[in-house]
């Protein structure tokens, strides 16, 4: 299903929850709505489903304005955060519900439900009641129930929020596969950026009732359109006060005495920072000497804090890389940094890195 949202507003009493949202989503895409709590993700999803009436603006589904359509007419599957299973019905009856409503004949219902439950790995639970299921199983029943009537669009509100970290990781990959198998257009809400980046074809970053950015996870991560996105997605070093960094003369442009010019922010992603031994020979001059102040084991990587003159930076290092100790002097190379300001946003590369080798022997 193609989705288009035009100039959508939603007020709850005096409170403006959604303030002019525009986006469009192509058929077959798996889209993540990501943003901080209270940003309006659930409200947008509910307006798409018809569970909430927009205060103004249009929801266009497959080219037709859907504002006047009832929930039932939209044929949109919705998976609620707390699953909202029918507790007095068995797993079979839960999944069959939407099909019974559609008056599908009994044999077909049985076949389809069993097929779905098989696919979900729930064949054993077919006659159980929701209170007899684990969180992950309930989640999958809710998912099967939403898929059973073959909706044209699937909406998932924080589908994994109540599931513990390990199961969650398996479940989201599984979900991704199932969805791509069905080829159904899907929008899911999440707080968790790893989840969003891992699962979604496309992300919509939602903040205080507005869309901050839409794009592929790669694009958004590497080319954030606003300060908010840069801050929100991934952990970044944010430079609080102006510094001069070797190779980044451009920073001068954004400085004003002891302050960044109004509304300027500078971010350095941890993966843009390279730690090299002090006696490195390759492009040594592009880096600066810094001291390791903190080393912390993170399971799959080292988390390292460094002091570069007045500046505190953090980065991470593969556990296979050479080890550094607290107090070690290292050559710190900053590849890029991103700057957001009123006059425009840019990602600046280290100017010294581009000079030819012969320049500094």
């Amino acid at each position: 299903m193609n989705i288009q949202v035009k100039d959508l507003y939603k007020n709850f009493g005096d409170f403006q929850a959604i303030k002019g949202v525009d986006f469009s989503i192509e058929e077959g895409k798996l889209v993540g709505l990501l943003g901080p709590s209270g940003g309006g993700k659930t409200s947008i999803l509910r307006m798409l489903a018809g569970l909430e009436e927009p205060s103004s603006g249009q929801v266009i589904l497959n080219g037709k304005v859907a504002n006047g359509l009832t929930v039932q007419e939209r044929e949109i599957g919705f998976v609620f955060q707390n699953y909202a299973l029918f507790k007095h019905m068995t797993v079979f009856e839960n999944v069959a519900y939407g099909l019974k409503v559609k008056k599908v004949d009994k044999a077909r219902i049985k076949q389809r439900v069993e097929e779905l439950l098989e696919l979900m790995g729930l064949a054993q639970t077919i006659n159980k009641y929701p209170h007899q299921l684990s969180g992950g199983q309930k989640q999958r029943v809710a998912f099967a129930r939403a898929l059973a009537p073959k909706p044209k669009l699937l909406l998932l509100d924080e589908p994994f929020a109540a599931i513990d970290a390990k199961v969650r990781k398996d479940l989201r990959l599984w979900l991704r596969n199932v969805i791509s198998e069905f080829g159904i257009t899907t929008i899911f809400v999440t707080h968790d950026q790893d989840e969003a980046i891992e699962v979604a074809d496309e992300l919509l970053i939602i903040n205080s009732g507005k869309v901050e950015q839409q794009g592929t996870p790669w694009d958004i991560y590497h080319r954030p359109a606003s300060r908010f996105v840069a801050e929100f997605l991934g952990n970044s070093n944010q430079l609080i006060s102006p510094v001069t960094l070797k190779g980044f003369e451009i920073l001068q442009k954004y400085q004003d005495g002891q302050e960044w010019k109004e509304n300027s922010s500078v971010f350095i992603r941890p993966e843009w920072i390279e730690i090299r031994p002090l006696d490195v020979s390759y492009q040594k001059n592009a880096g600066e000497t810094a001291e390791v102040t903190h080393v912390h084991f993170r399971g799959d990587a080292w988390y390292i804090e460094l002091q570069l003159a007045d500046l505190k930076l953090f980065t991470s290092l593969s556990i296979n890389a050479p080890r550094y100790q607290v107090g070690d002097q290292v050559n710190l190379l900053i590849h890029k940094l991103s700057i957001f300001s009123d006059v425009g946003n840019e990602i600046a590369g280290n100017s010294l890195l581009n000079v030819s080798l012969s320049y500094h022997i």
Partner: protein
Amino acid sequence: MRKLLISATWFLFILIIIFPISFIVTGAFEEGWSGFIEALTRPEALHAMKISLYIVVVVTIFNVGLGILFSLELVRGNWLARWVKPVINAIIDLPFAVSPVIGGFMIILLYGPETVLGIFFASFGVDIVFALPGMILATMFVTFPFVVREVVPVLEEIGEDVEEASRTLGASKWRTFRQVTWPSIQWPVVYGAVLTIARSLGEFGAVLVVSGNIINQTQTVTTLVYQDADYFNVVGANSLALILCLISIVTLLVLDGLKRRQEVLRSEHSSEGSV
């Protein structure tokens, strides 16, 4: 000390429950079985039973139906402004707070033969006050909170999600109510209905005021007991009182059974993941 407390409890129990009941029983059978049967089968007793039955049936049907609708609107209705709900919530308890006699007077003041409403209904040949409709209204007023008070908390607890889920699966409002909402509220509704029955049967003050207690016309079993006692008809009063008493005991047992059933259901649902 403990012993003293136990004996005090027994003393009270005997004083306020066993003693009156045995008094009613001896009173009822003062003239033996035949006296008891005769007291119950007097024309005015039979008529009073019929009136009481009418009231109980009509009031229960209306209050269950209205109670469910009212609860649904109160909890789910989004046309009600936020601040209105607590106010309505408080008003529902009004019949608990004011004396039933005052409830009765309100009906007389509203629907009495000289009022606008009274004249309006009289033009259709319907008398409200000093007739069955008024008695039904008075009893409805007194018993309205029972169903609502049972159903509202359950609706709040189950939340709107399951109903919304049902709608996204294409189910109509009515189907959603029948298959999703009703199974959750059916026992609270029955519980509220049983309380309504018990109270409608026993209601005295409001009905006495509204009915005028006209023998063979607007007399209920309860008001007949009052009249019998007034006229020193010991056997008559006690026989009817005994019947009311027995019905109350049965009602209480039914309530207890329902409560237990609800607790079993609830504990089943709260023992998540234990299987």
